[in-house]
């Protein structure tokens, strides 16, 4: 005969009381676990929503950044090509060149040695990126009976100290001719047409679109051929320096630098209105970057707003749970205590005789507390199971449950462990007073009553 056997027999005998006690503990534990499962699922949903939003924002930003980068690259390319005509270009001319000739006719008459280009390219000049030696002269295209501006160009001369750059202007190969819009329209020229220009055969390699400038009445051929046609061997009219870093006040610096290298020359800035356009393009790029930045900030703000909204929702649910769960636990404790009192009252005579035959008060108390521990564990197990199931059901009803979510996360595991410890403790605490009272009752009183 053992206390355990006594307890088990008593539980079987008064199973309704025991089952009601189990129910009380199970409801309390179930509500705690279900609340935790719901909270946990809510946290998982929050994390899933925020992760999804984060990914969306990042994808959007990546796409935007790519768009901006592509647009920027395209803009840079456009700029690079446009600069040739409109950019921060300078012309290096013989000092004696009358600029009014250039501005009025678009042609030049004074020359300088072609070697100037090489000389300039071999220096450590840093303000110039591309050098283009040219001859430019208004001539009669006798064979077609029209006046044209002839440009001879040999392509860009590489600057020795600088890293190799993509040329802004493609050279015209020998025997080829590039024709301006007005000329090819008037003469009905097409690419690959063969023409004779001042007694020399050329093949049309390219037709320029309308530019609204002297380019429309110009033809471009190889520099050496142009020099021969014009009798200007080893001479050039000008050096076109492209993509100069000569915007603003730096034109003064570049003039001084070039004059020192190439004495007897003058430097003029062409198409300075390009500066405004370039700045406008720069501003457009900046605006795009600012828009991108704003979009990034808006994405972050939306993410923060969603996070705050979810946090508020979770907080309200946690507040509700922080009230309901203790009330549930307290109610269960009171319920278990009342049932323990009822059990103790029913067992007065039995406890009296056990005390009479020699059981100590501590043994009687152990009988009741062992029963309470069994109530705690016995109620916690189904309570945990029901809590998990109910929590899952409610979570699935009320929220979009992420696929990767887990039913039991670390928070839920902690609550399960907590419940397994707290349920027996709570049950023992609830049964302590009735156990103490019944253990200390006077057995003589019970026997006398009978």
């Amino acid at each position, binding site marked *: 005969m053992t206390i355990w056997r006594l307890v088990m027999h008593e539980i079987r005998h008064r199973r309704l009381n025991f089952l009601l006690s189990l129910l009380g503990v199970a409801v309390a534990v179930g509500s705690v676990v279900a609340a935790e499962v719901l909270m946990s699922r809510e946290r998982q949903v929050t994390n899933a929503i925020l992760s999804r939003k984060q990914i969306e924002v990042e994808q959007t930003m990546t796409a935007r950044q790519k768009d901006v980068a592509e647009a920027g690259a395209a803009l840079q390319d456009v700029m690079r090509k446009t600069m040739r005509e409109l950019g921060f270009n300078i012309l290096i001319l013989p000092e004696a060149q009358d600029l009014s000739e250039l501005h009025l006719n678009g042609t030049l008459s004074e020359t300088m040695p072609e070697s100037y280009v090489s000389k300039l390219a071999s220096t450590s000049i840093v303000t110039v990126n591309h050098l283009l030696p040219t001859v430019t002269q208004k001539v009669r295209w006798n064979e077609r009976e029209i006046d044209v501006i002839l440009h001879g160009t040999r392509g860009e001369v590489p600057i020795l100290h600088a890293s190799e750059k993509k040329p802004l202007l493609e050279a015209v190969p020998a025997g080829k001719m590039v024709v301006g819009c007005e000329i090819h329209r008037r003469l009905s020229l097409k690419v690959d047409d063969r023409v004779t220009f001042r007694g020399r055969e050329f093949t049309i390699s390219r037709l320029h679109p309308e530019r609204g400038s002297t380019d429309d009445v110009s033809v471009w051929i190889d520099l050496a051929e142009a020099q021969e046609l014009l009798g200007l061997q080893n001479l050039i009219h000008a050096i076109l320096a492209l993509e100069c870093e000569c915007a603003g006040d730096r034109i003064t610096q570049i003039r001084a630098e070039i004059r020192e290298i190439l004495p007897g020359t003058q430097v003029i800035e062409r198409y300075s209105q390009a500066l405004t356009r370039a700045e406008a393009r720069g501003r457009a790029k900046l605006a795009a970057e600012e828009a991108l930045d704003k979009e990034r900030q808006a994405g972050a703000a939306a993410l923060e707003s969603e996070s705050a909204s979810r946090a508020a929702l979770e907080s309200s649910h946690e507040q509700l749970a922080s009230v309901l769960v203790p009330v549930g636990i307290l109610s269960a404790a009171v319920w278990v205590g009342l049932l323990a009192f009822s059990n103790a009252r029913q067992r007065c005579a*039995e406890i009296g005789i056990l005390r009479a035959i*020699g059981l100590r008060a501590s043994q009687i108390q152990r009988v009741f507390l062992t029963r309470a521990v069994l109530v705690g564990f016995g109620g916690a197990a189904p309570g945990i199971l029901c809590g998990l199931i109910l929590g899952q059901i409610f979570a699935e009803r009320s929220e979009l449950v992420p696929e990767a979510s887990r039913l039991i996360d670390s928070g839920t595991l902690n609550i399960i462990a907590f419940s397994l410890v707290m349920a027996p403790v709570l049950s023992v605490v609830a049964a302590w007073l009735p156990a103490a009272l019944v253990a200390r009752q006077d057995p003589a009183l019970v026997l006398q009553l009978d």
Partner: protein
Amino acid sequence: MLVELDQVSRTYPTQRSVVRAVQEVSLTLDAGQFAAVCGPSGCGKSTLLLIVGGLLRPDSGIVNVAGQQPYHLSPDARAAFRASQIGFVFQQFHLVPYLNVLDNVLAPALAVPHSDALDRAQQLLQQFGLSHRSRHVPAALSSGERQRVAMARALLNRPQLILADEPTGNLDRANAAGVLNSLKDFAESGGAVLLVTHDDDLADRADRVIRMLDGKIV
């Protein structure tokens, strides 16, 4: 002397007055003696039994049982003393309703565990003709069987003294005779029996009759 009471008194205070249940009672009981305390209801005989059994502290006087003064012991020591020295038999049997016959007989072993408790219990059940009922709960037994279970329980720890309060009150003549014979057998084997009854015929079968009236031995 197994039991010695010297000038023992016990009162019960009520709202209006004090009931003097036992007044300056002195008596002795030797081992092997079967004594019956008889008297009308309310004369204090059950109170006297509880005092001797170490269950009810007297207001005054000295109680000595088996060489010990139980009321000088701590509650736990007194409980252990009861378990080892005294067996109780009551009119209402006071069996634990959810324990079977064998477990009821074994219940005192919770207080004084001993290795041969099961053998002793089975031997007692055989002695009282209850072996075939060992797995039955009290509700399935007759009154006579229940009182025999109570007798077996009282004898499990081999006590020196049996205190019996109206043990035959709920029994028919045959079962009453059986219980009485068992008590006599216990006394003849060297134990002492203090039987409380209001039945003079029953008391007459004891070795010694102690008559009480208004809390006093007369």
